[in-house]
């Protein structure tokens, strides 16, 4: 022990960092801040370190070339002992990190921790979020599989819409007019050099500011922040009711960090690495590329936006959102910190969370994209063929052959672009069915010229059988003897 101390002293005389380390370790923090709510930032940092370590190991094997990237992931997955696990930890680490950064940000926002004098903690934090998302996005591109192509395609088409300089920007982003080897080199550069350098540098500044300005105290409803008095009040609080950061506050960070780390390791072991999915080849039209989880909401948003809103929203939206985020501490730099007294803030967080959640859910289901091989790969449910005539069976074949199934589900299977047709006969009369099929409407193509009269007859005779047993199908007013069903779709004659 003595000897160890000697070595430390020897080092410290020359390096002169002992004082700084000691200051960082033992600086006093408000007792109230040693709370379980204050652990997210530190574990995001922990995951950043994990990503650096696993990332360096992955880079030993990964080949950033369009022709070999995909194969080198196969090598990692199958030929190198625990190579797959390394990939899995890096992938899950990334997901956990994005989640933690978001949660950390939400907590900071709700606890008013961005207010005077910590405005720049928030501003650097916003950039840290952007860089983290940038890492997640560029990382997904490095997989260079179908999904990577999706991300790049969307990224390029967004960039291409920038007025005047769109085309050169795409060129810069992709390293050429198309997605090719140069594209991958660029994203490799971004993912392993440029963004990490910015990220680590900014994290340093962010942490330094946390140290120098002190951790935000637990917000008390009614205790307002005022520029003139806040610093003094904080100083008093720390003196009166403060504890040294080590060990009184840090142990919670460590326990939570260990839990997060454990979760990453378990998820990696149980769920494995992400992709690589199919080889990237734009000629494979059956491919259904999906972005990674944290970009699903963009996927959904782009699919749901009406075309005329796309360009303005895509170009202006991100600028407005980022500007708003950056302005938050300057718009409300003083005043109430407690979320109990800030209903608008709470509501904002809720609305944003619910919107993003709903869009993500939508993105997972992707109801707007047809099921490309539904027509040939999804059997007609057996109950819809029981006791049917030869003509109705042909109608079912027409339904499959004309790819209606790609947009319409039967028995829960099939596309979700159009409504499920399991009970369509209760909603539409045969005449209306014919009209819908021939003329289309809504988002449905008109089949008029692509169906022969025999096909229409067969199709409609099949569709007309699609009603729950015991429920009579919809009929015209003109037809006698059949009671009209209240289907909400009265026949329009």
């Amino acid at each position, binding site marked *: 022990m003595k000897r160890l101390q000697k070595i430390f002293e020897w080092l410290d005389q020359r390096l002169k960092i002992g004082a700084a380390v000691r200051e960082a370790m033992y600086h006093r923090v408000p007792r109230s801040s040693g709370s379980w709510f204050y652990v997210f930032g530190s574990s995001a940092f922990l995951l950043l370190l994990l990503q650096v370590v696993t990332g360096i190991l992955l880079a030993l094997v990964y080949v950033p070339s369009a022709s070999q990237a995909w194969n080198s992931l196969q090598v990692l997955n199958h030929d190198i002992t625990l190579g797959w696990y390394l990939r899995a930890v890096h992938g899950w680490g990334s997901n956990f990190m994005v989640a933690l950064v978001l949660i950390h940000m939400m907590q900071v926002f709700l606890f008013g921790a961005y207010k005077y004098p910590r405005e720049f903690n928030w501003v650097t934090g916003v950039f840290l979020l952007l860089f983290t998302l940038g890492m997640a996005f560029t990382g997904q591109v490095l997989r260079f599989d179908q999904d990577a192509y999706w991300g790049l395609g969307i990224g390029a088409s967004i960039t291409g819409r920038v007025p005047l300089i769109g085309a050169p920007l795409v060129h810069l982003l992709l390293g050429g007019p198309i997605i090719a080897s140069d594209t991958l080199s660029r994203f490799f550069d971004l993912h392993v050099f440029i963004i990490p350098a910015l990220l680590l540098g900014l994290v340093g500044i962010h942490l330094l500011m946390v140290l120098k300005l002190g951790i935000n105290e637990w917000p008390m409803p009614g205790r307002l922040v005022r520029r003139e008095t806040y610093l003094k009040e904080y100083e008093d609080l720390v003196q009166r009711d403060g504890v040294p950061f080590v060990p009184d506050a840090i142990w919670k960070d460590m326990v939570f960090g260990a839990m997060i780390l454990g979760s990453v*390791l378990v998820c990696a*072991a149980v769920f494995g690495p992400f992709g690589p999915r*199919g080889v990237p080849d734009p000629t494979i039209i*059956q491919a259904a590329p999906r972005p990674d989880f944290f970009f699903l909401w963009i996927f959904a948003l782009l699919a749901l936006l009406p075309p005329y809103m796309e360009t303005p929203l895509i170009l202006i939206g991100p600028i407005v959102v980022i500007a708003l985020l950056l302005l938050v501490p300057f718009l409300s730099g003083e005043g109430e910190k407690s979320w109990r007294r800030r209903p608008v803030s709470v509501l904002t967080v809720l609305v944003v969370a619910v919107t993003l959640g709903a869009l993500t859910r939508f993105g997972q289901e992707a109801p707007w994209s047809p099921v490309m091989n539904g027509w*040939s790969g999804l059997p007609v449910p057996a109950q819809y063929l029981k006791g049917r005539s030869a003509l109705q069976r042909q109608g079912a074949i027409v339904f499959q*052959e004309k790819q209606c199934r790609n947009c319409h589900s039967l028995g829960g299977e099939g596309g979700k672009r159009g409504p499920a047709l399991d009970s369509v006969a209760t909603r539409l009369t045969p005449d209306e069915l014919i009209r819908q099929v021939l003329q289309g409407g809504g988002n449905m193509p008109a089949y008029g010229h692509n169906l*022969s009269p025999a096909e229409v007859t067969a199709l409609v005779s099949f569709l007309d059988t699609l009603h729950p047993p015991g429920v009579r199908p919809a009929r015209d007013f003109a037809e006698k003897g059949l009671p009209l069903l209240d289907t909400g779709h009265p026949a329009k004659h």
Partner: protein
Amino acid sequence: MTCWRRLPALLPALFLILAMAGCSSLPGRPGLGPEVQRPSDVMNFGVLYKQNCSGCHGPEGRGGPAFPLADPVYLSIVNDATLRTITAQGVPNSLMPAFARSAGGMLTDQQIDAIVEGMRKNWAKPGILAGVTPPPYSAPLGDPKRGTQVYQTFCQSCHGPGGKGGAKASSIVDGSYLGLVSDQELRTDVICGWPHLGAPDWRSDVPGHPMTAQEIADVVAYLAAQRPKFPGRPYPGQPSRRRK
């Protein structure tokens, strides 16, 4: 100082997880081969059949709206070349699409071979027709007039007078129906029946009295003769708008 006492308890858990990572049976370990195969590399019959054929011919080759390919009687009558041609090129003027790339489909010739081979291996029962001389898979149409007689003898009991539908089976002379199926399909239906729907094969329309090859050709000609010139049109004479 509570933390220092708790941490050691966590460490073993961490090591346990790491040790678990060492064993190859972890659920997360990716299986061999890429997660998503290039579609043209898929050679597994089950997958190929399911993705390309089950929509119409039913899961496992029966129970769909189109002919049940998994019928061993069918498979012992039809030869591989026919199966291959039909799968590759489809059946003209019917709802059976072409699957070969050369014909605008998505399957390679090797994949089509794999499907034909798979149907034989999985569904055929060699010897099921031992001691029986089955009628040939294909033959020219016979005489529709004689076919009327044959119809009354063999089919009317179920499909009703004139083929317009009876107690046990539906109409097979509906204009739209006939407009959508090929003559060969009608022939296949007569020879093989649809076992899962209770439609008999050529031997059991009248028990103990199998149809002769000539009778089959005649009854198919009879049905084909019922096909209207412009199927599905209420007013004969108007040309069909069908573009195929």
